[in-house]
């Protein structure tokens, strides 16, 4: 299992990159502006569709909307494919 553990290091490196979380890596604009109204229990209000503010930013920082995050998916996918190949070859050699 030792070689396998060593191979897992690149996964860590991959995740360690700055943009591994869509919320933490979001640009400032993704959080919109601060809502300027009270939120009493009886005070129900609706935001316009697509309006990003302090009430709705959680919706627009999900992966499907976080365009700044999509590059990480591609990069992780490629790294995982390389890792899968390495693990397969290493376990095959070890088996022989």
């Amino acid at each position, binding site marked *: 299992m030792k070689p396998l553990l060593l191979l897992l290091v690149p996964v860590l490196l991959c995740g360690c990159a700055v943009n591994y979380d869509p919320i933490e890596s979001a640009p400032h604009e993704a959080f919109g502006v601060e809502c300027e109204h009270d939120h009493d229990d009886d005070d129900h209000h609706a935001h316009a569709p697509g309006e990003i503010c302090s009430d709705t930013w959680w919706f627009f920082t999900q992966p499907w909307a976080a365009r700044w995050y999509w590059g990480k998916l591609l990069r992780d996918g490629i790294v995982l494919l390389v890792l899968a190949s390495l693990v*397969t070859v290493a376990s095959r050699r070890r088996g022989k």
Partner: protein
Amino acid sequence: MKAVLIFSIMTLRMLFRRRTPWGILVGVLIALAAIAQVPGFSVENQGRFVLDFGLFGIELGALVLALGLAANLFPRDREQRTVMPLVAVPLARWQYLLGRFLGAAMVQATALVVSCIGLMVILLLRGIPVPGDLFPATLLIVVEGWFLLATVFFFSFFTSPPLNWPLTTILFVLSQMSVRDFVALAPESPGLMRGIRMLLPHADVFHIKDPLAHGFDVSPQFFLLAVFYGLCYTAFMLSLALAVFRSRDLK
């Protein structure tokens, strides 16, 4: 690859003969029917709740299907001593694993697509418009299900089925969490928690039920990237499973 295909079809037929996939499918459909019975109380956009909970139910179905189909496959083959003659002559170990995986993956995908059609029927019966992205959303759940299936195979080579269920379920729950929520589980050691979270997959990538329920379009580019990411993680988990399987003494 011919041997893998033949073995996967054998696995498919074997799984369809079992009661487990049928029982889970019926369970998911009953849950969807129960969601449809929730009264609307004239609440505006009540269809959002049906769609949101329906897709959540299908996602839970993917988890239970992965566990129900695969947790017992290798342990049973080993117990009945069918795995030894299989990997001794006709199949290499990778062919055994891939054949079992593909057979289970086909059964799982079929059950999830049937669940999606069930949700669609429920939406139509309640007069709620069916979003165009419902099938792509289900396809993403299918990819997540395949990842879970590969994880179940990985655990099944070194744990018993009763331990496989909680391990996979814990992984399923943790991989849904954002970094912030995950760190909040143990705020006194944020460094450790961030390190652990880095190793876990980001299953929130497979969820597009929120934009669907609120009428937002999902970019095809994101959809393809999410499918690619899910398939790559599945391949990685399968390679780990194969490494463990190759190191196992089957005697």
